[in-house]
């Protein structure tokens, strides 16, 4: 009845990883808040608004990371029909949308004091907004079909089409004239940020990553339980006529 690749192995692995991920998320969040808000210096140009970076940039990295893993899962779902891949993509989508929303809102809150505007339609901001809509579109699409298999397939195709947006976001600040500043951490010639600011940045990134791993495990478990419920209901419905015929 199930063609789960091996949910039992996933559950065993998840049970080991979950407490570690949750613990690291809590500790790294506390350390990130302390270093980001208290011990790191204000920027010589931007003052204390630079502290927004410690939320904004990790959220932006996570929004791209989550989408890329979902697209990889879509390949696994379409090519190898790996059922956990679909479960993963569905579980990760709301989290990716959440990170993208955090990125957009904190960027707006940073842009208003520093650029003098909440929003501009430049290439970086617009392409991230499209990423947000891709997440929402995926979540709507997989639930839009009566047959969930078709929904999952359509969602996987959307993920693969949308993956073209990932390099566009990454290189948008180089390809076009944008109000958004160019990359200052992931550069070929090394980071151009002061070291004391890199520490909270990477700690917060670790916190977001651990948070994502913990919550996506919770969501995948919920999804597997929901599928099990559906399968049991189908079995019961199929068995009901047999029982009445036997009597």
């Amino acid at each position: 009845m199930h063609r789960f690749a091996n949910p039992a192995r996933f559950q065993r692995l998840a049970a080991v990883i979950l407490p570690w991920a949750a613990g690291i998320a809590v500790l790294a969040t506390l350390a990130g808040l302390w270093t980001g808000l208290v011990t790191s210096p204000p920027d010589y140009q931007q003052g204390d608004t630079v502290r927004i970076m410690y939320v904004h940039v990790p959220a932006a990295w996570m929004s791209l990371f989550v989408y890329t893993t979902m697209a990889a899962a879509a390949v696994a779902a379409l090519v190898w029909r790996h059922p956990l891949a679909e479960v993963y993509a569905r579980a990760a989508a709301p989290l990716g949308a959440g990170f993208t929303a955090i990125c957009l809102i904190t960027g707006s809150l940073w842009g208003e004091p520093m650029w003098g505007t909440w929003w501009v339609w430049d290439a970086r901001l617009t392409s991230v907004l499209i990423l947000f809509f891709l997440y929402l579109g995926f979540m709507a699409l997989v639930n839009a079909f009566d047959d969930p298999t078709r929904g999952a397939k359509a969602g996987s195709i959307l993920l693969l089409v949308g993956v073209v947006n990932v390099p566009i976001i990454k290189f948008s600040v180089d390809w076009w004239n944008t109000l958004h500043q160019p990359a200052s951490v992931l550069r070929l010639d090394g980071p151009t940020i002061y070291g004391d600011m890199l520490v909270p940045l990477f700690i917060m990134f670790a916190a977001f990553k651990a948070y994502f791993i913990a919550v996506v495990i919770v969501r995948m478990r919920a999804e597997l339980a929901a599928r099990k419920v559906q399968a049991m209901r189908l079995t019961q419905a199929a068995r009901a006529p047999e029982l009445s015929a036997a009597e």
Partner: protein
Amino acid sequence: MSEFFAMGGYAVYVWGSYGVAALVLVALLLLSLRGLRENETILAALETSAPARGGRKRRAGQSGDGAEMMPAYLAMAGSDAGGRKPGSSADPAKGDAGGDTGGDGGGGGGE
């Protein structure tokens, strides 16, 4: 201390950013935990109300490790996976694929 909260005059922007991030992440966490609890409650109810035909499966499930970490559906799913041939993906019942309209609607709707 008040200097710390003033954030050099940018208090609204700095605290607003951290507040929004906390709000989104905590809301997603709570919704996800609620979704898991709801689905596992329904599953437990179904499994107690329909124990028939489960004898072989339950024995297979209980041989697994870490019973306290392992919800009941895992035992069932695991034995299903083990008892089926690799080539059965063409199974017309498609029980696995029929999976998530019920439970996921609850989780997704809140977001």
